[in-house]
Structure formats: structure tokens, C-alpha cells
């Protein structure tokens, strides 16, 4: 026996690509370009999206929209010591929320939340970052409200809310989710924002250095600026050619794929504090009796590194300097002892 399901209510909209009126079955949203790009001059059932000079045509069913303007990508929020976020490192996005039912629904609560898409940006954690670390939201509509990672604000007279999202310190892909309850029904819409330090490149696997330090939480930890990649490769090549009897250098953490806070322990918190913009490079040092690396302790042939003394390797330090890197000793006298090169 053939079953027939009742047809869901249809949502009419103007398809700007085809130049005709179309409709979608209930629950579906019009395609992006049409929902925000209807025909200018339509006086009935059209709305101007705050901050964008585009119009949309909406049918009768209640609809909730959240839209992030192109290119939907911003920088993570950076510390002042990493250069902060001047104009060319924009870390804020204005997001538009619209609640409508034929006309805009004014003075209605809408909840906006931020959720990280995992895995993304180099983070392969199983848990979400704490809400308070997902970026500051400032919503302006009928009321103004702020909150870290989540905020609730009221729509203005046109049913709109403008939300400014200051990026979190992490790089990654984030979903911005709008939710509202209208007449007992929960409406929801989502859009995706990418937060990243652009133009980082991954250090390739080659035979004159070794890449180390990958973890389950951060399976790819060797992303650098192009210049730093060339410099660290030059350092590695110089070491390899000048000191062929030594182990090739072992390169540990640089930055994650999208940059931003590199929570080395996988708990969404420092350390690392640095390693955010592809300009800090960790290089393993030898611990006699325990592991190979740049020789820095004497006596070299000791069997217990705890009985040795750090003197540093000035050949390596000099090579770093001629390639514009300043080597520092980090985590001294511990199993995490290493050279940190600041480019």
C-alpha cells in the first residue's frame, strides 16, 4: 500500500540566478546567494540585511537566519607580544541575525552560541574548548548584550540583531548558531567561520631534519610562515652539512595548521604561550644517556643526563643567528629541555 505524507509548508523565495520565483519545502533554507541577493526594488516582502545592501524575499513561515559575510575568515585574537591585531590582522566579524514571519519579528529573544568544529585548525581534541574561550560576542538589536561564547539578545524593530564576534585565541572552524523559540517551536540556523593565521605552510618531511612532537590532539605541529620555513630548513641544512657526524636536528613544535593558541597538553590552555603565528620553533637538545639531539651538555658520553651540565652549543646558536633566529634555552634541567628559536 502506498503511503502519502502530508506536504510540508512551502517557502517561496526569489531565485536571482534564474530570475524566477521558486519555493522550497518546509524546513529548508533558500540557497545562500538567493536568500541574501533578491531583486532590488521589490517593495513587498523584502528586507534589507543590516550592514549589507542586499534584499531578500521571504514567505510567510517563521524563519531564523544567521549569516557571516564573505570571506567568512578572520585572524585569531593575538597577544600584544605577537603583534596583536592591527587592521591587517582583523579578528572581528559582524554577523547578521534575522527573525521573520512575513515581516521581521521585533523584540524577540534569540540565543547565539559559538561551537568549534572538531577536528579543525590542527586541533583533534575530543572535547570542545570551554565556552569562555570561544570568543566574545556583542549583540546589538532591540537590546545589547555581551557574552563569551554565547549571548542572548532581543531583535530590533526589523527582527534583526547584529553580532560582533571577537575571534577566540585558537585557530579552527567555528559554527555560529542562532536559536529562537517562536510559538513553542524552536528555530535554528548555522553558519561557519574560519579563524586562522593565513599563509602558514607545513614543513615537509626530508632527510636532513626530523619532525617530532606529533600527538593525537595535535597530529600536525609544523606549520610556519614561508620565511621561517626557509630559515629553519637552512639552519637544518647548514648543521647537516657542517657537522655530518652529529644527528640531524629534530624539529618539535612550530605552530598548528591555522595558528593561534597551541595548547600543547591538549587542555585548551597554555603552554605553549607562543607558537601562534609560525615564528617560534623548538629544536630538541641531547640528553646524554636518554636521547639524541643537538649536543649541549658535558660530558657528552655520560650515561645519566642528570649528572651532566648544560654548556650550550655555540655552533648551533651561531647558525641560528645568521638565519635571523635567536636561540633560547627553555625548560632547563628537565626532560623537556630544548632550544626555542625565536624568529
Amino acid at each position, binding site marked *: 500500500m502506498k503511503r502519502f505524507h502530508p506536504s510540508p509548508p512551502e517557502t517561496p523565495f526569489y531565485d536571482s540566478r534564474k530570475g524566477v520565483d521558486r519555493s522550497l519545502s518546509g524546513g529548508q533554507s533558500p540557497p545562500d546567494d538567493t536568500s541574501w541577493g533578491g531583486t532590488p526594488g521589490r517593495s513587498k516582502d523584502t528586507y534589507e540585511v543590516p550592514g549589507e545592501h542586499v534584499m531578500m524575499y521571504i514567505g510567510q513561515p517563521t524563519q531564523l537566519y544567521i549569516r557571516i559575510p564573505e570571506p567568512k575568515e578572520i585572524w585569531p585574537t593575538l597577544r600584544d607580544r605577537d603583534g596583536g591585531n592591527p587592521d591587517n590582522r582583523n579578528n572581528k566579524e559582524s554577523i547578521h541575525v534575522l527573525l521573520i514571519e512575513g515581516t521581521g519579528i521585533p523584540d524577540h529573544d534569540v540565543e547565539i552560541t559559538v561551537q568549534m568544529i572538531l577536528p579543525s585548525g590542527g586541533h583533534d581534541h575530543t572535547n570542545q574548548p570551554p565556552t569562555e574561550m570561544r570568543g566574545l560576542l556583542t549583540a546589538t538589536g532591540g537590546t545589547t548584550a555581551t557574552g563569551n561564547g554565547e549571548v542572548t539578545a532581543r531583535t530590533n524593530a526589523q527582527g534583526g540583531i547584529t553580532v560582533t564576534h571577537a575571534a577566540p585565541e585558537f585557530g579552527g572552524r567555528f559554527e555560529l548558531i542562532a536559536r529562537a523559540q517562536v510559538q513553542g517551536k524552536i528555530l535554528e540556523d548555522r553558519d561557519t567561520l574560519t579563524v586562522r593565521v593565513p599563509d602558514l605552510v607545513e614543513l615537509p618531511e626530508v632527510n636532513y631534519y626530523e619532525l617530532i612532537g606529533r600527538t593525537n590532539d595535535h597530529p600536525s605541529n609544523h606549520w610556519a610562515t614561508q620565511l621561517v620555513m626557509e630559515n629553519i630548513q637552512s639552519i637544518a641544512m647548514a648543521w647537516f652539512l657542517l657537522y655530518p657526524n652529529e644527528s640531524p636536528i629534530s624539529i618539535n613544535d612550530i605552530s598548528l595548521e591555522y595558528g593561534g593558541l597551541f595548547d600543547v597538553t591538549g587542555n585548551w590552555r597554555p603552554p605553549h*604561550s607562543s607558537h601562534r603565528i609560525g615564528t617560534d620553533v623548538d629544536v630538541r637538545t641531547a640528553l646524554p644517556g636518554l636521547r639524541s639531539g643537538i649536543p*649541549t651538555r658535558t660530558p657528552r658520553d655520560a650515561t645519566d643526563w642528570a649528572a651532566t651540565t648544560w*654548556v*650550550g*652549543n*655555540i*655552533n648551533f646558536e651561531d647558525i641560528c643567528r*645568521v638565519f635571523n633566529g635567536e636561540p633560547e634555552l627553555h625548560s632547563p634541567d628537565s626532560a623537556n629541555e630544548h632550544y626555542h628559536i625565536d624568529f
Partner: protein
Amino acid sequence: MKSYKIIFLMFLLSFFTQVGFNADNYIQFIPETGDYKISFYQENGDLFVTIFEPATKVDPFVHSVVSFNTNVNSYVYHYELTNSVSSKQRLRVFSVEHYTPVTDIMSPSSSWRARYFRFAPILDWANSRGESGLRHPKDGIAPDSSQSGFGFESKGLPTIVTCYFRGGISKTFTFTENAPIEVEEFLQTHGKFPANTVQRKTLGPKAPPFPFFPAAFLDTLVSYTRQSGGLGWIADQQTSEKYETRFHSAQTALQEDRLDDTRQTLYQVLQEVQTDSGAALTSEAYALLCYNTVYLLSQLQESEVSLDDLIAYIRQAFEEGKITNKGIANSLIAKLETAGKHLEKGKPKQAVNVLNAFLNELEAQHEKHIAGEVYDYLKENVTALITRLGSPE
């Protein structure tokens, strides 16, 4: 009541560790050693203390000598370094700017390794005596000692450049990631090249200007004379003024087209630098004035640029976009070729007429399709050629 006290103390601790400090609170200069003590509370509440030892506790002196290798037409640059008795560190790194490529690098011994800076035109020698580069207490040159044997060859003329010295620090700088920004800024300004070096002036190679204008190069020689006086490379004001007067005199003669007088004055300079060398001029001043004057003289003699040279120059200028219209470049080249054919047939008057037509076209296209430097170079050399050929009757 007790808990209130604890909360108050925690507030005070938080206040002083997070908001109440500036760079002076974190960084303390130690006058006895010349080092800096850096201390701050980390995010986990632990006090982090480290010593920043600048690599600048040296008072170095460099002596440079330049000679000319006639076999390969290169200048040979030699450097001798002295670490003064007042230095508190051994002199471990010496770097010198070079603005032309260098070859045949010389080092005093295998423990001095030379390397090029990637990010600046600088050649760098660093000393390490320890096994596999491990820091050694006798790395570098001890105070009150000298070391010669640094050098290289280059086609570049001697010019005044900066050289950089680093003292040997006793230990790698130990640091952590989460320092206050004031400390980070202090290290950016004190810890990185070139701030963490002692700088001196010496000689290094530089390509002569191109296109070459003799009058402008005489200004360079005047400048070298004044700078040499300021650096103590010329013993007294009187000697300095003597050379300045010579160069001004040569410049006046050049501007008045008295080329022989210009040459004569410059030959006089060459005789005088030989006489003054050692007593009134250091080896640095001698090299600057002598080799740059010799080069100028060679260019004055070679200022009789051939038509083929000019044609090659126009082709290069077009390729570099300094002549923006191929038709104009071809037209200029055609006129020079025509002038050449007239000269081959022994008809200088016709050649001069064509060269004058060349100058007219050059004038017409100047600032439209021909860059200023190309216009200047062609005008100067074609005018000189016309002068040599004699004006048409």
C-alpha cells in the same frame, strides 16, 4: 576573619604581579657585572628568575687593509681584530657588511667559521674551540689580544661599512614562553641582532654607481674624506681639507669640460696619498681615497663610450622597462648604427649630424618614454662623442 586576610593578601599578590609592574620592576641592571636580572611571576604563580648577559661587554678595534689583486682584478680585504684590555668578555663573533659578492674567504684558523647572513649582506666569523661546538671558556679572542687573518676578495670598491662584534657569553640565555610583554620588548630591543652587538666602522666592498657620473662620484670622494676625518682615519684637519680641495678642484674642471685638468688633479691626489699613507692617513683612508680615485680615473678615460656600448645600453634599458616603447628604442639604435657606418666610411660630419638627430629624438621622448637616468646617460655620452668628433662645419 582569617579567610578575609587570606583573600586580601591574594588580592595584593595578584595586583602586584599582574597590573602594578612595569619594565623597571621586571628588569634590573646589575652594575657590577653589566648583566640584567629578569624576574616575574608566571601564570602558575611561580617566580621565574633569569640573567640576561648581553654580548656587548667588549671594546673591540678593527684595522683593515685593502690591496688590489691584479691577476683577477679584485680587491683583497684584510681585517685584524683587537679586543681591548677593558673588555669583560672574549671577542667571539665578527661580522662585516659587504654590498658586492665576496670570494676566497680567509679565516685565521679552522676554529673560526665564516658564514653569510641570510637576511642581510653580512659575512660573519664565529669562533668555537669546544668539541662539536660545545661552549668552551677559551672561545674567541681574550682581552688585550689581537687576531689577524680575516679577509676575502671582492670586485667591489672600498666603502665605509658597519662591522659588528659579539662577546662570548658564559651561558645560553635561559628563558620561558609566558613572559610579560615588557620583558619581551626588552629582549626584542636588547637581545636581537644588531642591538646585541658592538658596532664599529671599517671598509667593505660596494659596487660603483651605475650609470656612472664622474661629477657625482667626486662628491662621494669628498664625503669619504670628511667621514675619514671624523673616524680618525685622517690625522689632521689640514690633510682632510687638502683632499677636499683637490676633489672640488677636479669637479670644477670636469664641469668646465677641462678633462685633462681633472685627470691631472686626480693624479696629484694619487701621489699625495702615497706620501701621506702611514703618517697622515691610516690604511683605511688610504684605501678609500686611492682605489676610488683610481676607479674614477679609469672611468674618465673610458668615458669615450663606443657606439656599440650605447646600443647595448639602450637594449638593456628597454629590457628593464626604462625605455617603454620598442619603436623608440629601435629608432635610437638605428641612428647610432647609421652614425657608425658614416664613421667607418670616414665621414665624421655626417655622423655628427645623425648624432644630433639622436639627441633631438632623445629630448622629444624624455619624460614620455625614456627614464630620467637613461636620458642623462645617453645625453652625456653622445654629447661627449660629438665633442670628440668635432662640430660640423
